[in-house]
């Protein structure tokens, strides 16, 4: 068992108030423990946690580029293996680094089956460069490259299903988690780092700045995403779904209304057909993962 009282992601970072990814980092390291090497990608977390000569990381940490964490981790793992070292190799990367530009390296590392855990903190856009859409941005979210406008309802594509893609690569363990459920998150991280082979965890990490909500509401927003079914916490082992968190689902409206990135769906008047499309995404999730609690 890992000592959960250790603060391995310590004070001194410069994240915004209520930053979901900063909380994710803290919880991830409580799941991995000290014997861990973290590989980062360029993005908010890298920038807010390591302004030279300071660092918030109390475990060995390395950042190379935006898109190559999985390949760097492959090399670290090979070196450790050669020297019979036992540290866990854990990538902690943004959704842009993961869903988009990093896919080549991730696909390669997973196909080769390196003993690494790749964790994506999913704040659903490129935040470091000013809130641009990524393959993880949800349908209709307004970002600076998918702005809502006279002829646009925001991001025109649904979220890419990366967990399924990596499960199809033969990942031994794939899970989703949320910063709003810390015990579950830490448990999944601990499980992943102790599972041999390439494992993937995607963590829902609300971003107060990018999504447009008060910094004190991060956990509340995170919970709302699960309660409406737009985010599902589940686990897959060897490509099979083994567990999904059940909920008494509520309509998506409240979750959308709570964030500025969806404001255009309600102002000046509710765009009912678009909200219905988002509701359909939540309904499809509920069916796919069987999360509805029967009343």
């Amino acid at each position, binding site marked *: 068992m890992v000592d959960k009282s250790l603060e391995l992601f310590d004070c001194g970072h410069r994240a915004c108030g209520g930053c979901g990814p900063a909380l994710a980092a803290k919880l991830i390291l409580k799941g991995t423990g000290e014997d861990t090497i973290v590989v980062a990608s360029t993005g908010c977390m890298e920038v807010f946690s390591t302004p030279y000569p300071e660092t918030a990381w109390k475990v060995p940490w390395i950042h190379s580029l935006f898109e190559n964490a999985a390949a760097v981790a492959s*090399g*670290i793992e090979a070196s450790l293996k050669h020297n019979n070292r036992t540290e866990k190799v854990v990538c902690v990367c943004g959704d842009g680094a993961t869903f988009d530009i990093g896919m080549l390296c991730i696909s390669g590392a997973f196909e080769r089956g390196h003993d690494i855990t790749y964790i994506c903190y999913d704040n659903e856009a490129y935040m470091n460069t000013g809130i641009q859409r990524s393959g993880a941005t949800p349908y209709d979210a307004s970002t600076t490259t998918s702005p809502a406008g006279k002829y646009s309802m925001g991001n025109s594509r649904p979220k890419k299903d990366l967990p399924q893609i990596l499960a199809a690569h033969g990942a031994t363990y794939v899970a989703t988690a949320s910063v709003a459920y810390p015990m579950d998150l830490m448990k999944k991280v601990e499980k992943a780092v102790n599972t041999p082979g390439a494992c993937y965890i995607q963590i829902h990490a609300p971003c107060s700045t990018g999504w447009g909500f008060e910094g004190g509401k991060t956990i509340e927003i995170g919970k709302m995403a699960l309660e409406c079914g737009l985010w599902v916490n589940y686990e897959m082992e060897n490509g099979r779904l083994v567990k999904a968190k059940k909920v008494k689902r509520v309509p998506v409206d409240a979750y959308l209304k709570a964030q500025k990135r969806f404001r255009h769906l309600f102002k000046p008047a509710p765009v009912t057909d678009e909200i219905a499309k988002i509701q359909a995404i939540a309904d499809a999730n509920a069916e796919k993962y069987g999360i509805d609690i029967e009343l």
Partner: protein
Amino acid sequence: MLQIMEGSHAVAEAVRLCRPEVVSAYPITPQTHIVERLAEMVADGDLDAEYICVESEFSALSACLGSSAAGSRVYSATSSQGLMLMAEVVFNVAGMRQPIIMSIANRALGAPLSIWNDQQDSLSLRDSGWFQLYGEDVQEMTDQHFIAYKAAERHDVLLPGFVCFDGFILSHTYEPVDIPTQEEIDAYLPKYVPYNMLDAKNPISMGMYATPEYYHEFRYEIDRAMDRCATALSEAGKEFGEMFGRDYSEHIESYRMDDADIAFVALGSLCGTVKDAIDEMRADGIKAGLVKIRTYRPFPKNDIAKALAGVATVAVLEKNISIGSAMKGAVGPEVLHALNGTGISVYSYVTGLGGRDIRKKDIRNIAELAVKGEGDMFYGLREEVL
């Protein structure tokens, strides 16, 4: 003991003797034979290393960076498009001061696609912070691998390096080559001792981001290390000479330069042809000589200035092009700068791109052009296809 070996296989042998712990590379002509041979060595247990079979050159060098950061001696090899795909990582490795050695079997860049030799690929990355060595023949390019590791890993250097050799012309040529024994190389090149590394017992952060308060000084430190690299390479080359009888303490090699009026400057296998052409020119009473550059980065400015001091004219043979630049090649301006204020005429000749043959008569023609003051040009253009 001399053995007849293909250039690529001689390189693979040298790499094996250097005992890398991790090898990661991706096949590309004309580099392929090196990685194939290394994979065989690992498969047969002749090389105790992890061989990471990556999906691209981009990941190959990224994986090498990770292994190096974790404290291992690592190796990669590539050519042309492969090096371009790595480019972002190439700069990053230097910035992170990882002493990775990579062989470059030089090949032209697309478009149009060409698998044949010129030196555009490695010379394009001259500003990346990797030192660059160029070999003339199989023996020299093989030996340069030992020297490269020895210099790169010094704690007052910690820079990555390219060992470059002309694709096909050297990589696929069979030549007699003397390969040292493992005992000899173990005595020459001790186990790599990292300056710092990723280690849970002593956690550090690597590759952080730097504000304008710090970035400038980081680049300065890399440049300083590159200066010290000149000494490190020279010392490693001298020690190699003392142990193996082949001395590489000099960054350049002078050929018939004592009384030369006209001097050529060149890199790599072309130097063999130039030496033969010089012998013929000398027989005809033309006092020609050659300065062969072994170390292009760090650029041996003072050595070159000294070697060229007595000549009237310098013709730089460029198997590369710096498109849009005044001199057209990447080597010429450096030579010109080394000779600044001496009044010696320096001209560049872009020649032999994409595998075009360079013959002795071309060398002679270039000498004539240089003496007439015609230079900084493409040599040997086929007017009928323009």
